[in-house]
């Protein structure tokens, strides 16, 4: 890994150089809400944010995406879509959200490669921003890897160390992005490295909420039928916010949208919190109760996913906790699940 520093003064120039070559998406604040949006000018960016309301997952796995177009009816004419979204940089992504892409990759790769996600993923460079002020419900340190200032899952990581950013170039993509920036990026000194470590330690210490994830897969295997889940689900409204704002949720629906003469097969985010999600045409529903659906969300992340891909499908971003209208708290759920007597 190559280490540099970038002065804050020169950061706008650094971003401008990227904008010249890439579609750049970065955190933009609007009426108190930060979202990743395409920017044309570095001044649009707000880097003083905890995290974006909607995870940047939405840039690669779009909330609504046209799979292909067609002529409606029984004549059969398909117009494929160009899946290439162009060369893109996500600037300012948090390490937790960057990790979510590594988790999502497992689903979208495999025997059937998903061209919509994977083409964008391939063409996207992640320039992360170390999380020096984790929020109250952040718990990214509860997992085996990652952490608020981890470069593990980004291509380049910027960490605020005072008057400059400490820049870690992690991957070939990151090298490719920064290779022409030698006027802006100065090799880091030992002192810079030390400063970065201090910042990192401080950030880790800010995180006060933790849950024990060791052994959670086995534990969940033992308490599937425990009344615990009914108690957890009792206050759930089934709104699905937890899933829509989750950086690792990947479930989707496919629908045909048509006018008289044109049609498109469209994929949209879906949620396992919705009873219609599993409702069969016969009227039978394998997950008829809210308990079934709440349990499915937790198991999908902490049991099914690790069984299938050897990684927990939760990055500890805290969005589902922050935004739940009835304060269902995944940290508490996982912690209490671990304490259920079997």
């Amino acid at each position: 890994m190559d280490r540099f520093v970038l002065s804050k003064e020169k950061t706008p120039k650094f971003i401008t150089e990227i904008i010249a070559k890439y579609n750049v998406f970065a955190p933009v604040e609007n009426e108190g809400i930060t979202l990743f949006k395409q920017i044309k000018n570095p001044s649009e960016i707000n880097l003083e944010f905890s995290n974006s309301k909607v995870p940047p997952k939405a840039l690669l796995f779009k909330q609504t995406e046209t799979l292909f177009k067609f002529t409606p009816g029984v004549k059969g004419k398909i117009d494929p879509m160009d899946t290439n979204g162009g060369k893109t940089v996500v600037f300012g992504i948090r390490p937790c959200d960057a990790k979510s892409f590594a988790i999502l990759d497992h689903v979208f790769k495999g025997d059937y490669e998903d061209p919509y996600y994977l083409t964008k993923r391939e063409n996207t460079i992640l320039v992360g921003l170390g999380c020096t002020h984790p929020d109250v419900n952040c718990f990214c340190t509860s997992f085996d890897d990652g952490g608020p200032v981890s470069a593990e899952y980004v291509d380049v990581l910027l960490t605020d160390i005072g008057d400059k950013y400490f820049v870690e170039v992690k991957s070939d993509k990151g090298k490719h992005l920064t290779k022409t920036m030698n006027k802006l990026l100065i090799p880091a000194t030992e002192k810079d490295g030390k400063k970065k470590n201090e910042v990192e330690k401080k950030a880790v210490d800010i995180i006060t909420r933790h849950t024990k994830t060791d052994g959670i897969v086995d534990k969940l295997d033992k308490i599937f039928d425990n009344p615990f889940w009914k108690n957890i689900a009792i206050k759930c409204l089934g709104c699905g916010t937890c899933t829509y704002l989750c950086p690792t949720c990947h479930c989707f629906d496919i629908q045909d949208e048509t006018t008289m003469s044109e049609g498109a097969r469209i994929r949209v985010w879906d949620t396992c919190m919705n009873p219609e999600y599993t409702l069969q045409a016969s009227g039978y529903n394998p997950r008829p109760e809210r308990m079934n659906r709440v349990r499915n969300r937790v198991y999908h992340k902490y049991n099914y996913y690790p069984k299938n891909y050897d990684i927990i499908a939760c990055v500890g971003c805290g969005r589902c906790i922050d935004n739940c209208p009835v304060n269902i708290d995944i940290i508490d759920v996982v912690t209490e699940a671990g304490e259920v007597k079997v």
Partner: protein
Amino acid sequence: MNTNPYQPWLATIDDIQEEVGGQRAIKTFKLVFQDKNIQNDFNFLPGQCTMVSLFGKGECFFAISSSPTQKGYIEVSVMKLGKVTSALHECEPGDVVGVRGPYGNSFDVEGWQGKNLVFIGGGIGQAPLRSLINYVVDNRKEYGKLDVIYGVRSSKDLSYKQEFAEMEKRKDVNVHLSIDVEEEGWKKFVGFVPAHLLRVKPSPKNSIAITCGPPIMIKFVIQNLEQLGFTEEQIFTTLEMRMKCGIGKCGRCNIGNLYVCKDGPVFSYKQLKNIQGER
């Protein structure tokens, strides 16, 4: 070949067989891919499924009901139930649909060579079994004794009538048809499929039992198979769930950590007993 797994190939409806009328009508659609190369490359085994779409209505996941020994086309048997299946029932020969697949695992037609096979089907659950039965009959000498148990509500609800009539003429296949409620002129078994199974009383020795039908039927069929001495490794079923992608990504057809579309739809009873999850 198409590298976009969501984009179907075009297929023409070559023929439509009306199996059952009434409210829950069943039709079998014979589909021929427009591209001959796709047709030749569409290699599947009994038990596998396909995603069929009507452009503007949507897609549905169906078991392929024809046998791979029948070349040049595939068939799906569709009960008219929801939006897409109702629209499919309005289609006519010559109409074009989208087809992608084949998806999922299959019955172990190689591993079961030399064994006696017992097929226990109910209603539309016969569709995936039909593919397997026709495959086995077309490779008759590779398999032992064959018992085909199939039950429906009334004689009007029998699918594949012509095929059963042909099969009943054969000496090397034992066909056992039943209806739920007595009817004038029906000389075969009257009663539910699990009871009929006990009456037929297949021996578990060197046998495999494959069942598909309504969940309640499967439940009692399995109970009765165990009563007859079949072990959980000798019992297989094929499941269905609501599906959108068919390729293990959209999330909804999971039973525990397994996806019916890609890890199924065929499961042994032993496997099913050990998966924790809603189904």
